[in-house]
């Protein structure tokens, strides 16, 4: 038995829906664990990524911290996979891209009823939002993409098992979807 592949996963500007879908491979997780072990991931709660074979990233890039995490993954992972609409197209967070960020913050925190007389959050621990939301491939090289919002557990399983088997991953009708 060869050495287990090491996998890291994270969610950036995403909703963890793709991670939930990943868990939807259900009992096949046990079969997967015969082949892989997890590095940084919500599954292990390891905070920083070490050298890995595969990195799987959900969510796009909407703030400065996202950029640092993405760089950390790219630096450490031989193969980097963007999973889900947000990682691949910017997705829901990117729906603000045609608006001015300053106007968005002003409207939400200052002028809209309910939060009037509030203030725009400025705690130094909060990562600064970027002017625009970006898909991952605009920031670093991405090797593979698993589309879907979220991709189904079956799609994730097919993709990963193809990849681990050394084949070019293919989804095909029924597994490839953008919604």
């Amino acid at each position, binding site marked *: 038995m060869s050495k287990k592949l090491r996998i890291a996963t994270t969610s950036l500007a995403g909703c963890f829906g793709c991670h939930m879908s990943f868990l939807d491979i259900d009992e096949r997780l046990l079969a997967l664990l015969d082949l892989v072990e997890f590095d940084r991931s919500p599954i292990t709660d390891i905070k920083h990524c070490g050298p890995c074979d595969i990195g799987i990233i959900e969510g796009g890039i909407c703030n400065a911290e996202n950029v640092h995490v993405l760089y950390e993954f790219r630096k450490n992972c031989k193969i980097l996979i963007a999973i889900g*609409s947000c990682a*691949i197209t910017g997705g829901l967070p*990117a729906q603000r891209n045609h608006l001015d960020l300053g106007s968005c913050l002003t409207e939400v925190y200052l002028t809209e009823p309910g939060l009037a007389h509030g203030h725009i959050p400025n705690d130094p621990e909060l990562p600064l939002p970027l002017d625009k939301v970006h*898909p991952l*491939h605009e920031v670093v090289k991405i090797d593979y993409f*698993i589309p879907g919002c979220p991709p189904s557990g079956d799609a994730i399983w097919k993709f990963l098992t193809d990849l681990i088997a050394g084949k070019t991953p293919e*989804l095909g009708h029924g597994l490839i979807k*953008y919604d």
Partner: protein
Amino acid sequence: MSDTFQLDGESVPFEPGQTVMQAALATGHYIPHLCYHPEFKPHGSCKVCTVKVNGRTAASCTMPAEAGLDVESNIEEMNGLRRTLVQMLFAEGNHFCPSCEKSGNCMLQALGYDLEVHTAGFRHLYPDRPLDASHPDILLDFNRCILCELCVRASSEVDGKNVFALSGRGITKHLVVNAETGLLKDTDIALTDKAMHVCPVGVILPKRVGFSVPIGKRRYDQRPISKQALDDAPRQADAGGSCAAREGIP
């Protein structure tokens, strides 16, 4: 016995006056396409139907069929070009499938699935294109327009109304509404118009019927567009087939 040409190594018979696309579809051979619609004159603008004819590229929807042509369509070189075209369309507009009413019934999306397009690849432009929700029964979402001109052609040629037009050139080209105000409410478009039923993507939508078909039962959930288009092909030959049924519009 009619003349034939070769399509991916198979003999395809054709009638005089038919294009390569028309002959192919009529005989059960799928060539991917977006701006082509059997009831309208070929437009030749999306270039998704590009094939190699005797070694040179040509749009199969405008290429007249001729005896002895050697046409290559389903080859990696052509599918690679089609993939890039589809990717550019996705990067150029705002195609956010998870929130689109047309998702599952959209030709652009279905073509992306068929071509195994996993990413737009290019930098997304995220253009600012406000909606036109002025009409009581119809919503226009310009974010998804791929400039195929099918609504323009349907409105002028079939409905006789000229509701839509394309304006601008190059990257600034966009769909406009022919009214003083530029708003759809100030036109005489009606739900029963042909222009309502030809949009291959999710620009022209009837209001209050969105998401009525559950995921799994939508048009391209059931069968890939390459199969679905062939199912539709025999009906294309019938005069007056239901366009709404074909486009999967509720």
